[in-house]
């Protein structure tokens, strides 16, 4: 019940395209849903996050869509750029623990 399922495992998009990564969860105790971006050799860095009382949050080119009833949330990267090429992790937090998805390796072709 602590799992967060993430898809797809890998994603290739053209520059300027939209990248979409999806996550699903079961535990209704999760109360915070962040997305992390990780470049090779670096630790994950917080990209954007949402709480379940909000259906959408946008920061620049990055948008989280949240569907509480379906227990799903997704990251949309608009106008994807080669510099966005990285591994993206969704995560979900209870009061004591942050649980990560398995990651999506995004490649944006120039």
């Amino acid at each position, binding site marked *: 019940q602590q799992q967060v399922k993430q898809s797809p495992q890998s994603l290739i998009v053209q520059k300027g395209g939209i990248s979409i990564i999806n996550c699903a969860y079961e535990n209704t105790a999760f109360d915070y849903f962040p997305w992390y971006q990780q470049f090779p050799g*670096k630790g994950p860095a917080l990209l954007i996050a949402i709480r379940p009382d909000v259906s959408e949050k946008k920061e620049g080119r990055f948008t989280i869509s949240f569907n509480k009833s379906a227990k799903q949330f997704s990251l949309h990267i608009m106008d994807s750029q080669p510099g966005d090429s990285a591994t993206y992790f969704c995560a979900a937090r209870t009061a004591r623990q942050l649980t990560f998805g398995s990651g999506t390796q995004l490649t944006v072709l120039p």
Partner: protein
Amino acid sequence: EAGVAQSPRYKIIEKRQSVAFWCNPISGHATLYWYQQILGQGPKLLIQFQNNGVVDDSQLPKDRFSAERLKGVDSTLKIQPAKLEDSAVYLCASSLGGDDYGYTFGSGTRLTVV
């Protein structure tokens, strides 16, 4: 502000040897986490400290892994003896704790057990 510092960056050891990793969190961050990230997977929590006390170590393989956080600041994670399946990146993260949901991760230590 300075980030989370970890050392060493890389370590190669033979199975059954011991190894230790060090983490210095962001100044003032009360909560410190150690995560294990196996290649191709998301980070998995090993242990969480609040100041110098353990909050959650339910996923720490206690027969071979140990961790301490002396004086509520720096932390050390030790593996003894190491197994091949311990090859991973060990990430340290810190946060203010309480209602602060922002984690800052270090760059990690990449451990290879041969």
